[in-house]
Structures are given as structure tokens and as C-alpha cells.
């Protein structure tokens, strides 16, 4: 017996998550075998390929927003989690403090330095190996040119003799009163000189991050070792400031909202979501449409549901009761990826795909070993 094929309207209805004043309905996806009697929901690569879509909304260097349409929440969430926790980057890990007479304590200073995002040649970062932490059983890998990057921070504050007598600004009164991320000096070792040259040199992404404040006679002198790591280990290794997704909002106006109500309705949503259009003569002439005798008045129409925040404000008013249905599209994920500056944001997503592929391959290998 051939499997039943649900109608397009039915499929569309199943895609929408219902959002009510107090509850959310129809949450889990049902497109798997055995849920709908008689229907086949077998997963097939061709069906997925035909249904899958990617749309870019913005693609700046360090921030991108795009939609992935037609995939399961599990996969979309896997990408989000991989983006945050499993793409390797470089960050300061060990601080060797030779001198620190500033008011900021050694451990606090070390922790601050760790969180500074560093950039450098992507090729070089990919070339770098993991550093193996020593344990009780095994010795560590030690610091080598292929796993450790050395930065130095050497600043001393002293009085500026040429400063004006009445000067109040400590930055003019003293030299090096403020220590910034740009004071971190990169010292390439061995093959690092070939990889991290010119623009590819290791440097803080934001040169104006304030690290500490000094006064004359105070001094910071330290050596910093940067290693490769992943966000799951520590947030400083995370390549993204945020990587999140939301589902595409869906607004259905089920019964006409006209005149003053329409203006009030539009105010319940962010700008540009609801538009006002005059009721046409044809609509007014059709009986049962709800527009009878309202020709020329303003009616509310959904212009761009994408911009909605799904605040549910419109559900609070009696006049809109039963006239509007809010929802979200279950398989339309609007991603927003903001890079901390090591990688470009669109490359980051591709890296996430690569990591997921790699994990799948490992899983597959594990299965083959299990069968053998």
C-alpha cells in the first residue's frame, strides 16, 4: 500500500508552533516514521536536499545573520553549540608574572588577560597543535613553537616632564598611566615567524581594552603563553560573542481588524511588522468577508513577520480576541553569529559544519568497530 501523502495545507499547519497568551502548543516535530498513521516520514537525503534552504540576511565581517530552513531543531542546535564550545581558538593561558606593582592583583590581572580575544593568521592558528596538559601519569607536551605563542607585557609608568602644570588627566600627566591590550607584544619563536607575519601577527582584536591603570613607579612585567583551546574548556576560547537562533515568527490575522483598532494593533508590534492598507471596494462588496461597508477604511495586514519579537502584547486586548493567531515556524531557524574577531563570522559557521562532520565520521568509525 502506498503511503498516505498529507496535503500542503496540512504540512504547513504542522510546521507552525502555536503561541497563546499563557501556553505554547504543538512544540515537538512530528515528521518521523510512526507518528502519523499511514504516512511515510522516512528520512531521505533527496527530500532533505529539496526542502533545505539557506538565506543570508546580513553578512558583515564579524556579524552575520542567516536562515536555515527545513532542518530539525536537533541539528540547528548542534551547530549553535559547536559554534560556542567546539571551534578551537587561541587565548592566553599561562601568565608568568615577573613583576606587578600595580594595584590590580596578580590573579585578577591574569584572569583579565585571558579573556582578551586575540587574532592572527588563520592558517597559522590551524597549523598550531594542542598543548597536552601534564597529568599524574603522563608528562605534558611542553611548550614548543607549534603549540605555544609567547606574548610579553612590559610597561612602567613614570612622570611626564613636559606635562602642563595644571594638567589633571593622568594619561597626560604620566606616561603609560593606562595599560591597554595594544601593549601586548608578540614574540614569534621558530616557525611562528613564517606563519604570523605582517597582518597575520598575533595581536589583540580590540587594541583599546583597558588592562590596568598605573601610577609613577608602578610596573608590570610579565610573559604570557597563549595556547589553542575550545570553548567547552573555558569561555575565553569561544570564537563567538553570541551564536543564537530564533524561530521565524508567524502572525495570522484571522478576522478583519479595521480603523482605530488596526492602528492600535500595529502599535502592539515592533515597527514594520504590521502595515495599514485601505479596504478595497471588491473586499467590501464580498459578503461574509467582514469588510462589508468599510470600503476605504484602514485595515491591518502582516507586512514583515521576520521583525516581530513575539511579545504577545496583542493577545492582552479584548478587541483582538480571536482575530489573530501568533506562532512560529518550527523548521525556520534565524541564526545570528557574532565573531569575537579571530575568524570571519560566515567562516565560523562553515567551521561548525566541519566539526559536526568530523564527529559524525568518528561516530561511524565507532559503529564499524562495534560490528567487527
Amino acid at each position, binding site marked *: 500500500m502506498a503511503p498516505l501523502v498529507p496535503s500542503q495545507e496540512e504540512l504547513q499547519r504542522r510546521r507552525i508552533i502555536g503561541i497563546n497568551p499563557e501556553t505554547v502548543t504543538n512544540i515537538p516535530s512530528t515528521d518521523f516514521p510512526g507518528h502519523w498513521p499511514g504516512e511515510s516520514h522516512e528520512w531521505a537525503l533527496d527530500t532533505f536536499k529539496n526542502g533545505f534552504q539557506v538565506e543570508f540576511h546580513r553578512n558583515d565581517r564579524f556579524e552575520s545573520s542567516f536562515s536555515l530552513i527545513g532542518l530539525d531543531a536537533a541539528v540547528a542546535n548542534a551547530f549553535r553549540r559547536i559554534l560556542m564550545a567546539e571551534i578551537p581558538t587561541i587565548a592566553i593561558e599561562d601568565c608568568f608574572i615577573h613583576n606587578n606593582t600595580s594595584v590590580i592583583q596578580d590573579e585578577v590581572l591574569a*584572569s583579565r588577560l585571558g579573556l582578551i580575544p586575540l587574532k592572527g593568521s588563520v592558517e597559522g592558528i590551524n597549523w598550531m597543535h594542542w598543548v597536552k596538559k601534564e597529568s599524574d601519569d603522563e608528562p605534558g607536551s611542553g611548550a614548543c613553537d607549534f603549540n605555544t605563542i609567547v606574548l610579553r607585557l612590559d610597561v612602567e609608568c613614570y612622570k611626564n616632564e613636559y606635562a602642563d602644570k595644571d594638567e589633571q588627566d593622568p594619561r597626560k600627566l604620566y606616561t603609560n598611566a593606562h595599560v591597554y591590550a595594544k601593549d601586548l607584544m608578540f614574540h614569534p619563536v621558530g616557525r611562528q615567524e613564517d606563519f604570523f607575519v605582517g597582518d597575520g601577527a598575533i595581536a589583540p582584536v580590540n587594541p583599546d581594552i583597558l588592562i590596568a591603570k598605573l601610577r609613577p*613607579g608602578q610596573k608590570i612585567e610579565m610573559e604570557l603563553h597563549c595556547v589553542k583551546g575550545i570553548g567547552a574548556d573555558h569561555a575565553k576560547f569561544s570564537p563567538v560573542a553570541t551564536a543564537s537562533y530564533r524561530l521565524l515568527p508567524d502572525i495570522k490575522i484571522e478576522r478583519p481588524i479595521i480603523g482605530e483598532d488596526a492602528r492600535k494593533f500595529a502599535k502592539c508590534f515592533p515597527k514594520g511588522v504590521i502595515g495599514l492598507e485601505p479596504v478595497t471596494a471588491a473586499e467590501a462588496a464580498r459578503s461574509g468577508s467582514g469588510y462589508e461597508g468599510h470600503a476605504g477604511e484602514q485595515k491591518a495586514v502582516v507586512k514583515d513577520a521576520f521583525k516581530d519579537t513575539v511579545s504577545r502584547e496583542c493577545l492582552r486586548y479584548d478587541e483582538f480576541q480571536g482575530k489573530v493567531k501568533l506562532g512560529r515556524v518550527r523548521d525556520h531557524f534565524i541564526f545570528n553569529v557574532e565573531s569575537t574577531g579571530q575568524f570571519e563570522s560566515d567562516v565560523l559557521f562553515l567551521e561548525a559544519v566541519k566539526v559536526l562532520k568530523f564527529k559524525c565520521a568518528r561516530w561511524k568509525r565507532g559503529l564499524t568497530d562495534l560490528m567487527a
Partner: protein
Amino acid sequence: MSREAYQVPSMGAQTAFDTQGGYGSAMNVDSPSVVYLCGECSARVPLKRGDQIRCKDCGHRVLYKERTKRMVQFQAR
């Protein structure tokens, strides 16, 4: 234990911290001087054994020890 286990630098006999060298036999005249910081004017005050504890510039009587010259290691976590 540690791969970069810290080695205490041999500071020689001229420091006051060297137990075998200076301090025990510090009764002699050229005893080592230790630098302190004045609590009032932050001046560097070298003091020898038996010296009056007093800043040479401002006469303040509270002096502080300098920070250790040893390297301190922290994890940036």
C-alpha cells in the same frame, strides 16, 4: 612534578635572604642593605642592619618590603 618547575634563582651572598651567606655573619660593618619603600613618599630606602627605621627623605617611620623578585605563575582562568 611540573614541566616548568620553578627553580629558585641563586641570588648570591649579597642578599639578606641568603641564609648561609650574609645574614648570620651580618654583625660586620658592610652588612647587606635591603631596600624598603616609604609608606609616605614611596621613596626607596636602603636599610642596613641596625639602621634606624626611618625614611631618609621624609622621616616617615612606616616602611614596606618590596615585592618579591621571584616569578609568580598564574593560569588565566
